[in-house]
């Protein structure tokens, strides 16, 4: 059925033929009838990575298939969400080893974007096998030890290798559903980067950073570090009685689209200042449940509507370790002076990590939301030049306007990635608006990078 559809950034909004997948044959039928298809889970990418003429909707393809309570390995259909896994398995003492900032993503989506979060490592570091439906209708299993090339290309491959049908994930054991959280208010960029460099034993870390502060306040931030709380860490009687069953709070909602003027320079500046000063100076530790630590925004349904009908995008870039200390202040200066303030900006340091085509790599990454205005894309093109100058790259799952250059120069395996995609899908059946924009399916010519 033809519907108007967009992803989390509410831009672009396109008309597509959305086909629900309840069985691999549904997908085969759609692939044979359509020119181009792309799988879509819960639509939490920000741009056009899950948009195409025909969309394979997988969010009801969500059965749990098996769970090994000794090894903590869960096998499920690709439409199972991270929320489903947490609801089912936290009460049994298991947790996701890597989670992004929202639990409303499917396993398939988490693999396709190879999502990352407050921990080091990325989602697919813990995926032990993937079952995939390829463009030719074949169903294939791949893993770090079987069909390794297909596994490496599917992780972070943005759905272009085919439809992920099932996957197995290794969870980590936890004693409680709570996190021991430490917040540290940092005066400036030097202070927060210093903290990242001296992480100690903390498993989880991220900093919220004020991207509109200038001068000596540039880079003022709130660092949040966390560790799974042990049973002995809990103090509240209710927590001690049911350490694996935190109370779930009712959600808020943004029921209607906010007017475009609601989020503007002044309101963003005011918010950033309030957020920074609300955190008391110095270091503070407390116990919070996993929802509050990992998914603060999930409490507000449809929070993307506060950006208004124009929609928004997130600019998320990574700078390698070698250039981070030089490049980050330069970029931060450029961002704070551009006048297109973003709040909820996030800074994180990534440790040693290797993958074929995924975004995470050792270095610092910064993620900023921007409402879509007429001058935004030209500005982001400027940022791109700077990011490339420092050897960095952008995160495909957030992107909606990157040019092919930026992709091919930012990712060392980009060309090899395109070759593999062409080899497995010569008719380019699996194609998104993003992959088309990035010229991933074009055979190399002298004109292309």
């Amino acid at each position, binding site marked *: *059925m033809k519907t108007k559809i967009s992803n989390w950034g509410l831009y672009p909004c396109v008309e597509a033929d959305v086909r*629900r997948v*309840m069985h691999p044959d549904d997908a085969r039928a759609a692939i044979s009838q359509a020119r181009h298809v792309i799988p879509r889970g819960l639509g939490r990418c920000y741009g056009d990575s899950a948009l195409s003429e025909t969309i394979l909707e997988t969010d009801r393809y969500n*059965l*749990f*298939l*098996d769970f090994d309570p000794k090894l903590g390995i869960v096998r499920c259909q690709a439409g199972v969400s991270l929320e*489903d896994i947490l*609801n*089912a398995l936290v009460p049994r003492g298991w947790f996701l080893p890597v989670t992004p900032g929202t639990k409303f993503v499917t396993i398939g989506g988490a693999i396709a974007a190879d999502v990352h979060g407050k921990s080091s490592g990325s989602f697919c570091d813990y995926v032990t096998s993937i079952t995939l439906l390829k463009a030719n209708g074949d169903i294939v299993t791949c893993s770090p030890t079987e069909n390794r090339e297909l596994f490496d290309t599917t992780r972070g491959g943005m759905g272009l290798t085919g439809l992920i049908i099932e996957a197995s994930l290794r969870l980590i054991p936890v004693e409680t559903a709570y996190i021991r959280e430490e917040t540290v208010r940092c005066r400036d960029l030097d202070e927060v980067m210093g903290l990242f460099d001296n992480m100690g034993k903390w498993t989880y870390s991220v900093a919220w950073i004020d991207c509109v502060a200038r001068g000596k306040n540039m880079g003022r931030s709130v660092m949040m570090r966390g560790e799974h709380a042990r049973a002995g860490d809990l103090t509240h009687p209710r927590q001690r009685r049911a350490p694996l069953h935190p109370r779930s709070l009712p959600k808020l909602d943004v029921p209607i689209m906010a007017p475009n003027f609601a989020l503007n320079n002044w309101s963003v500046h005011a918010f950033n200042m309030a957020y920074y000063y609300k955190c008391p100076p110095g270091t503070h530790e407390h116990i919070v449940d996993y929802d509050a630590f990992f998914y603060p925004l999930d409490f507000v349904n449809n929070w993307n509507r506060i950006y208004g009908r124009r929609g928004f995008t997130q600019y998320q870039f990574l700078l390698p370790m070698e250039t981070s200390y030089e490049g980050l202040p330069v970029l931060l200066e450029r961002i704070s002076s551009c006048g297109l303030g973003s709040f909820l900006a996030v800074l994180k340091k990534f440790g040693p990590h290797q993958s074929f085509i995924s975004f995470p790599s050792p270095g610092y990454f910064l993620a900023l939301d921007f409402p879509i205005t007429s001058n935004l894309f030209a500005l982001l093109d400027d940022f791109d030049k700077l990011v490339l100058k420092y050897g960095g790259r952008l995160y495909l799952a957030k992107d909606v306007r990157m040019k092919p250059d930026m992709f091919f120069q930012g990712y060392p395996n980009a060309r090899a990635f395109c070759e593999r995609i062409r080899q497995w899908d010569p008719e380019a059946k699996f194609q998104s608006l993003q992959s088309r924009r990035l010229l991933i399916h074009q055979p190399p010519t002298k004109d292309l990078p």
Partner: protein
Amino acid sequence: MKTALLLGAGSDVAKATARLLALDAWQLFLADRDKSIADTLARDLEIRGAPRAEGFLFDALDTPSHRAFYQSLPTPPDLVIVFFGYMADQAAAEQDFNLARKMIDINYTGAVSILEIVAADFSARRHGDIIAFSSCAGDRGRQSNYIYGSAKAALSAYLSGLRNRLARSNVHVMTVKPGFMRTAMTAHLQLPPALTASPEQAAKDTIKAFQRRKNVVYIRWMWRWIMLIVRSIPESIFKRLSM
């Protein structure tokens, strides 16, 4: 331990309801005319928190098998939910009586057959709850789907009588009347989003109404008022409409 028997477990609403029950630690018996679907669902629900979940073969059309089926359950259930139903195209059913009969036999006859067996058991034990999915279509026969609608109307009247009979045995019967739901049964239809419930929403509304011991619940709530208006249109006018 509380046990629920879900008849027609493969339906979208049954799946969503079973998941809510699993989170609340119900033991689940999942009955469907496709046993492999019932078994797969059982495994899914055990992982999601049901202390125990098992799949059974149950065919609403095969009424002679219903008694043996009910007696084969490992323990007598505390809650029985009838999810199964069938809606064929009205125009096709007008031409082909087999389709019409199938709608009547699945939606009404099959439900009567199994529920009489359940009622006998529950009234003897003076314990139990019954929930059955009828439809707003049964509130008034309309030219666009009256064969389905009349089968559901028959079911609603049956449930009302059953509720009356079992009230003195401490057994509660709840009739669920969905308006529009976004499920496999309506996948081919264009439904207005504001009035259409997702299976998850339908399951939530059903469980909430069940906990509050409602007699008749509309999914979603606004359909009670829509059907009130539809029912009050005088017949002399209604017969000329194309609803």
